[in-house]
């Protein structure tokens, strides 16, 4: 699936949808770029979304560099970064970025998202969670399921479009079940 196909699938869904975006492990880098291009370069500008990008995988300044390399507009992206601290990588503090000490602080992730939702009250919003797999490394399944449930329901009630990224083959049955409980649809990029 290429970036345009990803974007077309997303465009068929209304505000407030929640989507599991699963990225195939074979040729992961190509799939990841196709998925992000589809979301950030094609889908996001069309809906005029402001994006809240929650990363528990790649430090936000590296995400930003990557997005800029692929000529995505990062001026409308706010990062919630729960990984830089534990990677001892917070010397480069960026604007529009909130740092969280560790990906185990799930309530703090919810609180920082809540803060941004209020600050961006008048914008149409898209939230990307990158990724369910890294959250699962740092958290037990029960607390993660509770987190996802509270997060997605809250976003849905506020009409925020939600995309949860995951690696397709790496998703255990438990994670797949969690995603199918909270997501309206699944898109597989491979």
């Amino acid at each position, binding site marked *: 699936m290429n970036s345009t196909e990803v974007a077309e699938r997303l465009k068929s869904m209304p505000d407030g949808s929640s989507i599991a975006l699963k990225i195939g492990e074979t040729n992961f880098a190509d799939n990841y770029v196709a998925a992000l291009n589809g979301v950030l370069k094609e889908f996001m500008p069309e809906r005029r979304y402001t994006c809240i990008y929650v990363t528990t995988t790649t430090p936000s300044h590296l995400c930003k560099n990557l997005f800029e390399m692929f000529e995505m507009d990062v001026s409308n992206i706010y990062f919630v970064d729960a990984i830089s601290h534990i990677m001892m990588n917070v010397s480069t503090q960026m604007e529009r970025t909130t740092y969280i*000490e560790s990906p*185990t*602080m799930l*309530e*703090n992730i919810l609180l920082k998202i809540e*803060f941004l939702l209020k*600050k961006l009250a008048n914008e149409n919003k898209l939230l990307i969670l990158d990724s369910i797999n890294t959250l699962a490394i740092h*958290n037990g*399944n029960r607390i993660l399921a509770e*987190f996802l449930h509270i997060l997605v329901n809250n976003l849905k009630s506020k009409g925020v479009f939600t995309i949860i990224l995951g690696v397709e083959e790496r998703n255990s049955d438990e994670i797949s079940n969690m995603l199918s409980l909270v997501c309206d649809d699944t898109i597989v990029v491979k």
Partner: protein
Amino acid sequence: MTDVLAEKRGIQRERCKTGIEGLDNILNGGIPRGNTILVTGSCGTGKTTLSLEFLVHGALSGEKCLFISVTEPSSKLLANLIPYEFFDDRLIEQGLLVFIDMPALYERLGLRKTEFTFEEIHMLVNAISGIVRELQIKRLVIDSITSVCFQLKTEEKIREFILKLGKALSDFGCTSLLVSEISPAEQRYSMYGVEEAIADGIIILGNLERKGDLLRTMQVVKMRGTSHSRAKYVLDLTPIGILLVPLLKGGMGAEK
């Protein structure tokens, strides 16, 4: 008694919205108007911050609000308000937000002893309720009631003070937060035990340690006149005010 009858007939008591969205949700709309609430917790848990935000939101909605500061000079408290995005200097200029230092009030009443007599307690209650009536105050904070109780000493006197004050305030439809300071290890909600028994509601602020992470928490354990969540919430103090999310239960927590 009339409250109880009204509630039995399913009549909702009018609410005093705290303006803290998460707390108003926990309380199903806000604090029942006229209630006297104990806001309790150890040092640094956010009691003063919560109380100030409660008053600022009241003032913003046009209600007259009074902060009686017992331990800190009010000039210092004002400095705490500046970072808030929703705070507006004009609230003070317009007299919607009033600060009084308790030591100045003691001075005015000639209360200089370390232990007040019953007569002096009545003077103090009359003085506070007089100000509330005169200025038509709808929201009151006393920060902290523990420091006042310190000068009352006995259970009987504390009971007399809080009951008399609570009655007067509720007659004026004034919703009040009494800040109570406790040590982190404290098993009860107030220093003397009396305060918690006679308050209409108790909000506890605290810290919770989970696997090395320290979280700020809030819990409403009692609130007369409304159904409410008794669950523990995690709180963040931000420039746009207090934010709350549910405490996730999947992980096991140990109280600190």
